[in-house]
């Protein structure tokens, strides 16, 4: 039996653990410093989005979308996935031009999931949208899921597949033993394993540093708003082209607003704080795109801490200083959708040393230049 330790009980750690535990001959232990889904995995906006992805991410995102389309088969729960579509609206002719160029670029790579639509079609998709919107880029089949429910489903599925999840166990060191295995040291004890996955999110660079590897990566604390329940007025998840916003109405009727407006981040104390002066911009853009929400009462605001790489795409690959350690972090605020596929890729890298899944663009070697 081979042993693997997954550091981090977020969605990427749980997905990696699930896929690996289902492979024959692997005994998997997840070490989570606090509790499963404590940070960005549990509090993100739940966007299941291929639309507008970095061109290097599209292939992996397509694999993930296939998995989302039948997510019950993977984890035994639908994770609250609602494929209501994702729409990026153009607020003027120049923005519509940008969207057309983008669609052409994606088509040139052989993908067909993004489609430009005119003003009449936007109105049909989004009856409540402001009149100044002139068109949009649409991806049918995208949508959103319930983040905490997704985390719990992946947790349950990983455990049923035989993985052990230890919460309240923070890693303090990683070292190589005389026998060639890796030793993961926590305050409670030491775990020995043939392979280790670093899925520690905003704290993953610290784990890499324990293995003697410096990978450029910062942190971000995106802020979110949820309103009171409103009558149903919007099915797709919506964002503008020239400004930062993500906007969706949940099945319960609440409106969830994000878009990457940044709060105050304190990774040392593992906290982040809402800055209302910044969050006000999200509220303003939301009210300008959907005038009907102007009077909606805000119920809650929050932030979550997440890793952000310099080019805002993740790091997936084996450590160059400590073979046997595999990184998967730096999803930069859009890793939720990728998690089923990224976990599968990391599990294959661990078990077979190679994968056919399209993760080559995410090697940390890209920062060497």
């Amino acid at each position, binding site marked *: 039996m081979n042993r693997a330790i997954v550091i981090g009980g977020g969605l990427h750690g749980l997905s990696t653990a699930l896929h690996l535990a289902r492979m024959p001959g692997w005994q998997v232990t997840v070490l989570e410093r606090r509790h499963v889904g404590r940070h960005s995995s549990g509090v993100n906006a739940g966007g299941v989005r291929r639309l507008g992805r970095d061109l290097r991410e599209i292939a992996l995102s397509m694999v993930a979308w296939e998995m989302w389309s039948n997510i019950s088969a993977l984890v035994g729960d639908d994770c609250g996935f609602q494929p209501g579509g994702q729409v990026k609206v153009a607020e003027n002719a120049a923005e519509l031009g940008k969207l057309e160029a983008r669609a052409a670029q994606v088509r040139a790579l052989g993908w067909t999931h993004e489609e430009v639509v005119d003003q009449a079609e936007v109105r049909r998709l989004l009856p409540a949208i402001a009149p100044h919107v002139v068109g949009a880029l649409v991806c049918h089949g995208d949508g959103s899921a319930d983040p905490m429910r997704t985390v719990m489903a992946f947790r349950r599925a990983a455990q049923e597949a035989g993985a052990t999840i230890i919460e309240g166990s923070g890693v303090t060191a990683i070292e190589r033993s005389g026998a060639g295995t890796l030793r993961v040291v926590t305050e409670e004890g030491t775990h020995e394993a043939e392979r280790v996955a670093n899925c520690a999110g905003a704290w993953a660079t610290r784990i890499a540093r324990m293995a003697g590897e410096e990978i450029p990566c910062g942190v971000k604390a995106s802020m979110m708003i949820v309103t009171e329940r409103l009558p149903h007025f919007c099915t797709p998840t919506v964002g503008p082209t020239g400004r930062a916003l993500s906007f969706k109405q949940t099945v319960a009727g609440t409106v969830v607003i994000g878009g990457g407006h940044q709060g105050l981040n304190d990774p040392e104390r593992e906290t982040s704080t*809402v800055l209302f002066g910044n969050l006000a911009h999200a509220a303003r853009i939301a009210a300008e795109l959907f005038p009907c929400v102007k009077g909606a009462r805000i119920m809650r605001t929050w932030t979550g801490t997440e890793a952000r790489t310099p080019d805002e795409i993740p790091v997936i690959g084996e450590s160059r200083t400590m073979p046997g350690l595999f990184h998967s972090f730096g999803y930069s605020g859009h890793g939720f959708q990728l998690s089923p596929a990224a976990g599968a890729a990391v599990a294959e890298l661990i078990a077979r040393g190679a994968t056919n899944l399209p993760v080559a663009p995410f090697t940390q070697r890209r920062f060497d230049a």
Partner: protein
Amino acid sequence: MSTDVDLLIVGAGPAGMAAAVTARSRGLTVLLLDENAGPGGQVHRGIEHRAAKDEQDADGAKLAAALRSSAVETRFRATLWAVEPGGKVFWSEEGAARSAVAGRILLCTGATERPLPIPGWTLPGVMTVGAAQIALKTAGLKPQGDVWIAGQGPLLWLYAKQAVEAGGRLAGIVDLSHGIPPAALRHLPRALMAPGYLLKGLAWQRRVKRAGVRVIHAEEIRAEGEGRLARIVVDGTEHAADLLLLHDGVVPNTQITRAIPGCAHDWDAVQACWKPRLDAWGNTTAEGVMVAGDGGGIGGARAAAHAGRLAALEAARALGRMTEDQRNAEAGTERLALNRQLAARPFLDALFPPRPVTAIPDETIICRCEEVTAGKVREAVTLGCLGSNQTKAFTRTGMGPCQGRVCGPVVHAVIAAARGVDPAQVDPFRTRFPTKPLTLGELAALAE
């Protein structure tokens, strides 16, 4: 960050009024925010518009008059909804969001009623004693018809006395307390240092009984009716009821302090509530944020005023307007007076412990906003939820418009009892700003 004001005070009850006047007299610029139309807070509500009838009213009228004749800037109908690190404060006023940066922030947000969930308490016709008291003080609404009061605690008797004196009618009081528990007696000698308190409490009870109000000592009460309250069932006996007022004591209002990063709270086993961790001057563990009055632990109106003045002196010291020696000298008599006021507290706290939550039947709703029952919360515990926040994610309890303001203490207590652990080990709801709902439009107006 440059500041707009030296000291920003939230809440114009006894603590806030006393603190504002003291701070201003020491040369600080002071901005005082309050949700209500005028000063007074809950205990002295509407004090400028009614005649002072007793000593408590006289205290309030004096504080309000001092506030009005000071140069404190007051903003009424102003609702604070966020405090950020660095002293930036946000509030809403006349439908618009505003903000200011303060050198120190003093929260005097008082107490809130501990809910008393009984079967049928969500029926129209059932409300809290506190709400009835507001109606009495602000609109002169006197209880009429078959009005029952049930529960326990000093405020219950105070309201009953006020209602009777105002000419209201009460069908009866269902006293759910358990007499004087032996644990209370050992605090009695100290309590006698502040005899005014105890005598006042006894006088309230005597006044109510003299007015012919029936008092039933009971273990259990249910509210029943078709679509609205029609009767109460007290230990198996039915009584007709038009209005039922519930009360189970008060707890510090920690909605704001719990949302401030780095502001530590401790469980108070005697008062069975969470309190912000304060030093002797009212400093919390969050830089620049202070608390005075019942919001830091229940002590009553007079104690609150003393604590407010002490906090104001400390704010003046922290802002460099007086030395430590000056502060200590000026604080001397305030502190003695505060200690005297607090002398009776341990006895009162032991006398009125909250009703045990094991008495709440499974089918009783404890989160009114999301209609979550006690049984549902207990079930979440058996599924592995250890604290209030996990239970929130599982059951939606505390996710509605009140954001746990109402149900928080009960959800917390039910989880602790179901787990069979010390309540101190169970986390309370994490609160989030905005602590009071504001609209997207109001927030949008703050974007530069």
